[in-house]
């Protein structure tokens, strides 16, 4: 075999061997056990801190809100969409029987125009009618910068929730 071929074959063999060794060294241990991913990723995800409790859990204590909501346009919305993640609230609220929860456990009460506008702000390009197939309704759009902005009598700024019950808008 000519000299240059011998050297080339050796160089390529060394390169491929190095690649295979590095692959074995660097590949995560649990890779490939269950599929084309790190099997440990499942445990790692399971170990992550939970934040949300789910509407079913909210209903256990706040059944009157649930009854309101179930009859209105927001029936399909999860409570935590507006009130924020509530698992800590659920887990520890029972320990404060007098109802005086510390601020860290209190859930957010959205009452600003900004928060309603996230879904309901008028947008010329947004499809005008989005049917909620369950309630056979649509997401109403208003111009939050103009729609009843100021109370005509008090001259103070009006909040959306002063006219609309957020649980049954």
């Amino acid at each position, binding site marked *: 075999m*000519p000299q240059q071929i011998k*050297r080339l074959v050796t160089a390529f063999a060394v390169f491929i061997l190095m690649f295979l060794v590095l692959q074995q060294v660097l590949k*995560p241990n649990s*890779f490939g056990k269950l599929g084309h991913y790190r099997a440990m990723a499942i445990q790692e995800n399971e170990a992550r801190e939970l934040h949300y409790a789910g509407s079913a859990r909210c209903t256990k204590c706040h059944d009157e809100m649930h009854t309101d909501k179930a009859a209105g346009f927001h029936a399909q919305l999860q409570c935590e969409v507006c009130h924020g993640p509530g698992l800590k609230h659920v887990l520890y609220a029972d320990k404060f029987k007098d109802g005086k929860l510390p601020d860290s456990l209190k859930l957010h009460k959205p009452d600003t*125009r900004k928060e309603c506008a996230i879904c309901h*702000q008028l947008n010329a390009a947004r499809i005008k009618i989005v049917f909620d197939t369950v309630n056979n309704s649509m997401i109403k759009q208003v111009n939050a910068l103009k729609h009843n902005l100021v109370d005509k009598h008090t001259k103070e*700024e009006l909040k959306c929730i002063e006219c609309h019950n957020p649980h049954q808008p």
Partner: protein
Amino acid sequence: MVQHIQDLYEVLSKVDGYVYPNEIELNWSILIVLYPYITGLVAGAFILASLERIFNLHVLRPTYGIALLTALSFMLVATMPLISHLGKPFRAYEIMITPHLTSAMAIFGFVYLWYLMVVLLLEIWFDYRRDMVVWAGETKGLKRFLYKVLSLWTTDISPKAVALDKKLGYIVTVIGVPSAFLLHGYVGFIFGSIKANPWWSTVLMPVIFLFSAIVSGIALVMLVYIVLTRIRKLSIDMACLDMIASYLFYILIMDFVLEGLDQIHRIYEAEESFEVLHNLVFGRLFFTLFIMQGLFGTVIPLLTLGTLQFYKPKALIRKGIYLVVSVLILVGIFFMRWNVVIGGQLFSKSFYGYTTFKIGLIGTEGYLMAAVWLIVPFLILSFLLWLLPPWKKHEDDPDVQVN
């Protein structure tokens, strides 16, 4: 209270119409523009070198070595824009050690590796092996050591061994041409196969990418050749330059026609995405598409090179024209990549709106970072030209023996 709503409006002020929340900011910025641009320069430069070798176009001989070293310089940097774009660049190797066969990007790693290791490095090695052995005998110190390492400590430069080098080099070139097509066709495929994006999703994309790559690679080698002869204070080989220019002209015509076909196809089909793309092209992309890519990058070079096919002014004027045309084409192809990568992210996949793109000077996705990855290949090229000067190759004395 109104302030809060104003804040919301401020965020949305960069948006026209309706876009999904994850479309407001562009995920792929200038570094992802550079990736197909640099890869294209590699493929194009290599194909120019192959023309000389496969089709025996000896008139192109002065640019053969330059084209190969240019291709290698840019190839070594081709993945760097991608890696520096990553949030966790030190995990970049994972795509190679646990590749998934259904991942287009993972397979690109192997297409890249094949092209670098089996095509480019091998061809350059066979081309330079004898010279490296000779130079190892003529030089001292670090340079001598480098030549010895690079030639893999071979010493055989007998006519038989050199003939074998040439034969094997030729075979590598023959394999190299389809490999170069594969490399850049693959980059086009990565964009063309994204069916959710109507601006990218066309089967013509790999072909368009390939031809624009050849155009940009030839223009780059032409520019490097002109600048290099100027720096070395040598007279330029006008027959070679004229030949490169005529190839550039023909390939540019094909590139123009292919892109035109793609647009005609889109216009005639007028799918549901047509309106949003139409407004994109005449709105946010007007300057980069019609002015930079179309006028400066295609029409002016086409007319100029076309005129030079019939009318040949003095050599000095032609040289100046070639210099300007090569720069225009390089800029034009850069904006072609820009229009694909950035353009594809400026419109909402709801087809109801547009976002805007603003690029900063500094930061990992800024102009400076992009400039670094465009300058580094030229530094590598300077080093390679110092180490492996094509003009010092012992072309005419095959019997030269190592000292």
